[in-house]
């Protein structure tokens, strides 16, 4: 690779994280940017906030719930001027200062359904038993009311767990809380690099909150029609700002200062997997393997197809060179770099990338941090000599267009035979037709014979549409005979069927000579098994016939012949 330096690769750093949970910041104000990663652990426990100095782990802090986002922001102007780390996790924001827990912000609670509140009040006074409580709550849920976490959990429980659960929780006040889905920052009143910033949170209850960095009060609340998943923020809170939000319904919404309800910019035709803003353009990576670009007014500019599923996208903003591009990580272990709609570099990675961040790391201006699906950490540095071509490297006609098709030449023999065919066309045709009639007759005779003997694995009787497939497995002396029976009709079930076998009883022994089948539902495959023991050690084999019979009928419906394999002699080990 002539553009990237491989700085570090640890395939077993056991990181399980995504783009939203990676950030880089100078948290000690010593000019050395640290890497801050919220690790999702196993997904249920072992969640940690990890801080790397260089490539070595500096500190680790445990997090109670799954982290959904990590940002750093300046909350005051005190000296030394160090930023704080905010970790969104469940309904809380944990703020760390100097790598020590500093503050915990809890999302405002939502209004509880009055009926539900009333129900739990009754539980507190023991006026209602748990079974009827469950029935009432279930009714509420079916009507479409949003319940609290406690009620939802209660509905999931087995009936014998209900009583302990209710008595444990009934005295605590009933609260309805939501969780944070995405997290971002916005400068408050000054645009400097180290100015004070507000926190912007998107929640599962389809709200966006703006938090004051000093008092941790809600400065503004905004409403969305769906749950926000990705946010892109620009501007100053006190002056003018834009928040572009991608939601789970595939809509992209825009907020300005002073607006309570988001304005629809455009709607996607596939789920978004990443959102970035480059200047005035919004770039979205979608689940249908496309990267799409829209203006802030919602006009589609371009859309490019990428060769594999997109796992994450990230903006690459190289300020010194004034180079802005979009990094797209793909499920085929590649990272593509798009400048506008032109692919200008393809980077191979050792594993599928799930999270990446471009920015200043350590003292290096242009570093790319990537975490892999298998838990690895990759750090690459952009070479100072690297130049990205303006042109699209995938342009031009595909190379396969120049390949010649391998069409075999017609041989002289073929030409001679064609000549023969041309000269004797009439007699050849007559001969062929004559043979064809004879073959048809022969085939029809054999077919009738097969039908008469029911020697056919598929029934021809329209009343009993059945298909039989039998298989022998094993080495011997004991084989397993699997009979697969399928009712091939659309609607009619098959009843009263019996499977039986015909064999040489001096050579084979079956563990059951008859298998009664249950009712066969149309379209399903039923398999029945029988064990066959070969009684001879002389290395001979025979055929076994499988019949499917119907009660009160002398002729089998279908039958199959199985050529038994030669049995292996007993191996003494």
């Amino acid at each position, binding site marked *: 690779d002539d553009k990237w330096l491989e700085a570090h690769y640890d395939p077993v750093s056991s990181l399980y994280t995504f783009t939203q949970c990676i950030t880089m910041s100078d948290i000690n104000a010593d000019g050395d940017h640290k890497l801050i990663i919220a690790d999702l652990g196993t997904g249920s426990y072992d969640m940690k906030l990890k801080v790397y100095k260089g490539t070595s782990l500096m500190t680790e802090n445990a997090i109670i719930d799954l982290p959904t986002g990590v940002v750093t922001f300046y909350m005051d102007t005190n000296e030394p001027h160090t930023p704080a780390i905010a970790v969104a996790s469940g309904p809380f924001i944990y703020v760390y200062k100097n790598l020590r827990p500093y503050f915990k912000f809890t999302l405002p609670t939502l209004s509880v359904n009055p009926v539900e509140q009333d129900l739990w009040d009754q539980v507190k006074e023991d006026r209602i038993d748990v079974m009827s409580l469950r029935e009432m709550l279930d009714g509420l849920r079916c009507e479409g009311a949003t319940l609290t976490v406690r009620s939802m959990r209660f509905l999931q429980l087995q009936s014998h767990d209900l009583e302990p659960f209710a008595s444990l929780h009934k005295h605590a006040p009933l609260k309805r809380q939501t969780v944070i889905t995405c997290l971002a920052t916005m400068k408050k009143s000054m645009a400097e690099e180290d100015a004070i910033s507000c926190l912007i949170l998107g929640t599962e209850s389809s709200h966006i909150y703006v938090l004051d960095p000093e008092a941790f009060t809600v400065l503004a609340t905004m409403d969305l029609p769906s749950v926000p998943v990705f946010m892109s923020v620009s501007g100053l809170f006190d002056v003018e700002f834009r928040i572009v939000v991608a939601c789970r*319904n595939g809509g992209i919404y825009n907020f300005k200062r002073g607006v309570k309800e988001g304005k629809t910019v455009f709607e*996607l*035709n*596939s*789920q978004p997997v990443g959102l970035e803003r480059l200047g005035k353009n919004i770039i979205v990576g*979608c689940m*249908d*393997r496309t990267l799409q670009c829209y203006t802030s007014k919602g006009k589609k500019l371009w859309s490019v197809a990428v060769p594999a599923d997109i796992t994450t996208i990230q903006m690459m903003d190289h300020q010194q060179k004034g180079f802005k591009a979009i990094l797209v990580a793909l499920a085929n272990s590649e990272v593509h770099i798009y400048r506008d709609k032109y692919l200008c570099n393809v980077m191979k990675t050792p594993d599928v990338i799930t999270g990446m961040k471009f920015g200043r790391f350590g003292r290096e201006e242009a570093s790319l941090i990537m975490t892999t699906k298998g838990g690895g950490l990759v750090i690459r540095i952009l070479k100072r000599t690297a130049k990205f071509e303006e042109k699209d490297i995938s342009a031009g006609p595909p190379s396969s267009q120049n390949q010649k098709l391998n069409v*075999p030449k017609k041989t002289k*023999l*073929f030409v001679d*035979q*064609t000549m*023969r*065919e041309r000269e004797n066309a009439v*007699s050849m*045709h007559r*001969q*062929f037709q004559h*043979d*064809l009639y*004879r*073959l*048809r007759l*022969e*085939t029809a005779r*054999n*077919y009738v014979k*097969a039908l008469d003997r029911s*020697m*056919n694995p*598929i029934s021809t009787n329209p009343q009993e549409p059945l*298909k039989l*497939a*039998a*298989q022998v*497995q*094993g*080495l011997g002396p004991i084989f397993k005979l699997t009979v*697969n029976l*399928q009712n*091939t*009709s659309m609607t009619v079930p098959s009843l009263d069927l019996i499977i039986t076998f015909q064999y040489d009883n001096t050579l084979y022994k079956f563990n059951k000579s008859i298998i009664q089948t249950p009712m066969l539902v*149309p*379209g399903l*495959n039923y398999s029945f098994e029988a064990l066959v023991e070969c009684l001879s*050690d*002389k*290395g001979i*084999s025979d*055929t076994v016939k499988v019949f499917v019979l119907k009660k009160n009928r002398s002729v089998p419906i279908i039958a*199959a*012949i*199985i*050529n038994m*394999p*030669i049995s*292996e*002699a007993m*191996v003494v080990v």
Partner: protein
Amino acid sequence: MDPLFLAYSYFRRRKYEQCVELCSQLLDKNPYDQAAWSLKTRALTEQVYIDEVDVDEEGIAELIMDDNSIAQVARPGTSLKVPGTGQGAPSQGVRPMSQSGRPLTGFVRPGTQSTRPGTMEQAIRTPRTAHTARPVTSASGRYVRLGTASMLSSPDGPFINLARLNMPKYSARPNLAKSLFEYIFHHENDVRNALDLASGATEACQFQDWWWKVQLGKCYYRLGMYRDAEKQFKSALKQQDMVDTYLYLCKVYVRLDQPLTAVEVYKQGLQRFIGEASLLTGIARVYEGMNDMSNTVQFYKDVLHQDNMSIEAIACIGTHYFYTDQPEIALKFYRRLLQMGVYNTELFNNLGLCCFYAQQYDMTLTCFERALSLASDDNMSDVWYNIGHVALGIGDLTLAYQSFRLALASNNDHAEAYNNLGVLEMKKGRLEMSRAFFQAAFNLAPHMYEPHYNFASMSDKVGDLQSSFNAARRASDAFSDHMDSKQLLSSLRKHFAML
């Protein structure tokens, strides 16, 4: 006449039964008659002897518990386990693949049926075209079975009781040891005792006799000690160049999954024995195993230069021409086989197909009729299946339907026939029936891509997108370059990603 002389005469005229009888009479009179004893062992051996070079069937134990493999993911073109992309060979869509991912061979040999199964279930399932189960290990199985014929014919116990044999005594006697070894190895199949005898004998002649080294190598090969076998064969080759030894050494390399080394050794052998057909055949077989069709055909042609009666070479070249769209040349090769006296179902079946595709219609159906009249239970279904194909070619769907049904009647595991019946039922609009046929086909032969794809496109049409997606995935696993499956998959992906 001197009875011993008569016995020798019988032996030379390959009348082994009479020879054994005479020797037994001689031994009854004088149990210490070494000449008679030695002749009897040789006669008994000859009765059950098969060429050790060609017998090569990998047992389940060798396949599943292969402890000699070094790289699990070998580079394509260097391993028999990962067949290459097929140089000079038509794609899977034209020439069908066997279960192991190799094109169907023109000549059935041990080991061409279905090597290297992916799972245990595939390993124990009896292959459709080989009506015997796979042996458990190569130390038993076939070999014991071949020996059973002689076990039946000696009611008063075995001729030589191996447990009571004084091995060191015999190994010191070169005149008796060789015939005794062959008896133990081929007739009794007791590789351990044979190894004891051989190691004693090679020590007794101060490691100077190459013959014993080859026998030691054979024993080690049977026991699965390939590296020791390789050492013995190489040491034997240093003393004496023999074609057999080269062939055994290459067998070892093939088993060690080093096809390129095997080819190298074959070529060394060819430098000593210029134009030796068995060595050339060996190279062609290795290349066929690696899917390298252009080299395979080249070497089979070399074989024909040396030995123009080689059935294997003619059949393989014929098959290659048939599948590379030159049936008229294939027809010439098969006619050559017919002239040489090969007269069986398979040949007439192939002749019929070649005639049909080379537009020699007056001879097509006669060939199939002949094939049908010669067919046994084993290959009857394949003849009917091919008649069905001809019927499809002339557009007679009733005849095709009946032929495929007859193929199933004589062999109910015929997955290809199930697949084609499914297509015919789909044409008739009986979707439930055709779904059942496709399911049966891909359960029987998961390595075939056709039933998977047919099932996918049918499910796509009736709106069962989930099964369609899964089946299309399986189809493109079985045949990664299949464009139709890829297109179906991409359209389904688009559909799933749409809001």
